[in-house]
């Protein structure tokens, strides 16, 4: 049956009317509907649509609402709805925030002419060319992407260097500029420290450890993991070091990462010594060198931060170091409390440098570990998914991140692996990192705590869980809360990655 109603002397845009008709046709029981102004042509359209238009006396200034439906109540409802919709169209969304998303570099530059840096996290095989385009337009580049060929990296850095621009990366996860975090980084205060890091979580750990000691950081320049190799020659590292040494806002320089190629290391040390600015080197796993104040050489991340903080506060670095060393006794005591045990340690890490440091600390305590990213080639795991004996795995390595989100963002896989370790009867200590800050998962502690609890279901008290949180009070995840969640699940949370690794070492009975 049909119903036709006329609303006199009203004008509606034909588009609006069509959209209302479209909505009415969605109502249950409505077979057809049409809203048109009463012109001759529209009468014909209604008629050809099956409506009986005899006796309708609408003029071109009147609106005809025509509905066909199953029964009277359907038609009543449809007409009511039609009038509501005309008055207040349901499809009219709020004006969007106005953020136009350009689809190209040129488009972006047209919108923000004074851009000075491109942050690139697209697939590696495209990232290099995109970075080159950006350099061509006078932009610095933070290249978060990995899987960028070495030759491309060299070409990018050489070209950028000629133009006075910086390329941070590839595989650079963390950059801090004037206290602002790009990529994965923590919300720490700003201060007179400048960090140059060939290592994302290396930068993060030092950044956080400085903040915990009341010292802020102004700039944290990531260089990418390969920059200090001979082939690249440390282009970005040297540029960054030069800049920070001559920057009067920076009072203390920190350089952190795996040990560079000899010629690069020498160049850096040379620059630093000539400038005379207090500097701390954290060459994780490097040869122990002697300090040459105001240049200090450290081999662990917390130690690096500790010495740098002392310098920044005008305190004695030697005192700071010995205070730190003194904590070892506390860790030994804690290991006794938790209960020392025989068995293997498995490390599940999301931060590459943290994984590396953990291996080194364990090695220093006589525990040699296998890894997918080992510090010595002989200890490379054949299959990253099959840890053996003592194994420390970096879940941020390439084999795990192809087509998957970084483990600092998505903890699913690491949690699965944690549960799997519980089923191995020889595993007695599980060590992991929890990274907070921008870019990271909003609640890693809960996910890991759940995995730990589930694992206990399988392993009982056999496994001792040890962790450190790379985070600070102001981080979006709420540091204190994250700590409590882990502790409630029976995880021993330590102040730093080095301390957690040490505690793990002390837990393994000798």
């Amino acid at each position, binding site marked *: 049956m049909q119903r036709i109603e006329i609303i006199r002397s009203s004008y509606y845009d034909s588009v609006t009317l069509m959209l209302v008709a479209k909505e009415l046709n969605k109502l249950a029981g409505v077979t057809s509907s049409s809203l048109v102004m009463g012109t001759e042509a529209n009468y014909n359209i209604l008629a050809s649509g099956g409506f009986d238009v005899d006796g309708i006396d609408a003029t071109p200034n009147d609106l005809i609402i025509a509905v066909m439906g199953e029964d009277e109540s359907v038609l009543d409802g449809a007409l009511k709805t039609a009038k509501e919709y005309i008055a207040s169209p349901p499809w009219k969304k709020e*004006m969007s925030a106005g953020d*136009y998303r350009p689809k190209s570099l040129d488009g972006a530059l047209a919108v923000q002419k004074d851009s000075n840096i491109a942050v690139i996290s697209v697939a590696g095989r495209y990232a290099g060319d995109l970075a080159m385009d950006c350099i061509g337009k006078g932009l610095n580049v933070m290249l978060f992407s990995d899987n960028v060929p070495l030759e491309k990296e060299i070409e990018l850095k050489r070209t950028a260097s000629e133009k006075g621009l910086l390329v941070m990366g590839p595989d650079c996860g963390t950059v801090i500029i004037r206290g602002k975090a790009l990529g994965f980084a923590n919300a720490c205060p700003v201060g007179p420290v400048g960090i140059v890091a060939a290592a994302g979580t290396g930068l993060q750990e030092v950044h956080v450890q400085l903040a915990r000691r009341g010292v802020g950081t102004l700039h944290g320049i990531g260089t990418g993991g390969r920059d200090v190799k001979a082939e690249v020659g440390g282009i970005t590292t040297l540029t960054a070091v030069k800049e920070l040494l001559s920057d009067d806002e920076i009072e203390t320089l920190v350089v952190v990462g795996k040990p560079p190629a000899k010629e690069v290391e020498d160049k850096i040390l040379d620059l630093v010594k000539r400038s005379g600015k207090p500097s701390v080197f954290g060459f994780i796993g490097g040869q122990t060198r002697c300090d040459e104040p105001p240049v200090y050489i450290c081999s662990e991340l917390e130690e690096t931060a500790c010495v740098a903080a002392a310098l920044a506060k005008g305190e004695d670095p030697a005192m700071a170091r010995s205070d730190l060393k003194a904590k070892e006794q506390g860790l030994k005591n804690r290991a006794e409390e938790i209960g020392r045990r025989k068995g293997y340690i498995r490390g599940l890490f999301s931060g590459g440098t943290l994984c590396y440091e953990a291996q080194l600390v364990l090695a220093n305590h006589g525990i040699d570990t296998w890894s997918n990213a080992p510090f010595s080639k002989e200890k490379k795991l054949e299959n990253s998914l099959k840890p053996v004996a003592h194994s420390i795995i970096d879940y941020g390595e390439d084999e795990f991140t192809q087509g998957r989100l970084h483990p600092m963002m998505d903890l699913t896989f690491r949690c699965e692996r944690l549960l799997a370790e519980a089923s191995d009867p020889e595993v007695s200590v599980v060590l992991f990192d929890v990274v907070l800050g921008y870019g990271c998962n909003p609640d890693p502690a809960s996910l890991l705590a759940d995995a730990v609890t589930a694992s206990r279901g399988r392993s009982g008290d056999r496994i001792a869980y040890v962790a450190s949180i790379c985070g600070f009070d102001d981080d979006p995840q709420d540091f204190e809360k994250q700590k409590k969640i882990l502790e409630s699940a029976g995880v021993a949370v330590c102040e730093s990655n080095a301390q957690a690794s040490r505690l793990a070492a002390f837990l393994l009975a000798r």
Partner: protein
Amino acid sequence: MIDIQEANKKALDILLKGQPVLLDMGIARDTVPGMTDRTILHAGPPIKWEDMSGPMRGAVMGACIYEGWAKTPEEAVDLAKSGEITFDPCHHHHAVGPMAGVTSPSMPVFVVENKTYGNKSYVNMNEGLGQVLRMGSFSQETIDRLRWMEEVLYPNLRDGIRHITKTLGGLDIKSIIAQALHMGDELHNRNKAGTSLFLRAIIPAMIEAVPDVRQLPEVIRFIDKNDHFFLNLAMAAGKCTLEAAHGVEGASMVTTMARNGTEFGIKVSGLGDQWFTCQAALPDVLLFPGFTKDDVNRDIGDSAVMETSGLGGFALAAAPAIIQFVGGTAQDAANYTMEMYEITIGENNIYTIPAFNFRGTPTGIDILKVAETGITPVLDTGAACKEAGRGQVGAGIVRMPLDAFAKAAEAFIEKYFED
């Protein structure tokens, strides 16, 4: 030594300097270059009868009947198949046509001249909505209307236009377009303001020039009832300004973009006479009452010349009312235009967008930017019914297919890059 940027700048410059002026009207046979007694011109790239879609076939059949070459639709089909008719793109004859774009020898056409460069373009008159030839109708109503247009509409318009030409040098189409753009038209799907402005100009001229003013009421009413009347003139204006910019060595600017209901095709300034084609898009548009998705014919018409010259879908930010066709907001309309800036060479000098602080519309589609970014031109167009003669089924936003641009970009690189 050729620089692509310089070449494109030159091509865009020529496009923007164009001054399209309506000078005259004539019968296609005598007026359109290359027209023969058995030529039927059509929209889009070259196409054979066998490959034509419903609306195109219907229009061809209607033209055959209108011309008196066939008495029935069946005879028309036989004739079309026979090979006696020469089918050719309007574009090959400096002409354009909306939807099927069928232009036959007896049809009256507008003559628009690009005063800056001296080249001319041609287009027939817009029939209005409903049972019309350009949607593939070959009904008696359609034929009768075409005859009336030839016998009554044409001579009166012609006399009015000639009068304007004699007294003012011609009717400045570009100026009407620029004003219409500030009055809510985007000059492809909304031409109400343009049509109104055209009427204001032509009525007094016709009153002064025509032999029998008693014909004028029905002439004026016809144009008045057809909100899209001005579209054809805007298309001819676009055509003659773009043609002057064709043939610039090293330029990657699109000078022709058109569809024939089966295929989509483009021509590029620096790539000579070659068409780059691929399958035409299937429009996903807001449907008029009584039609479903299955009724929609593939994209058809030379009206893409509007976007090619920086209007239509490219000027959506100036005509936000249209965006309701896709249930969008005024911000969406603005975003479409913003996107088009990313694939064009520059901005228009005369066609400006009030909402963007009178920034010129994105003008001069660059095939290289399209290939690089994957952003394809956005058109604001009508969709025809697959079945000949059932008319328009809907209207909305349609994206042009990437393939033709990729082919053109490849050809461009092959031509101009030397190792």
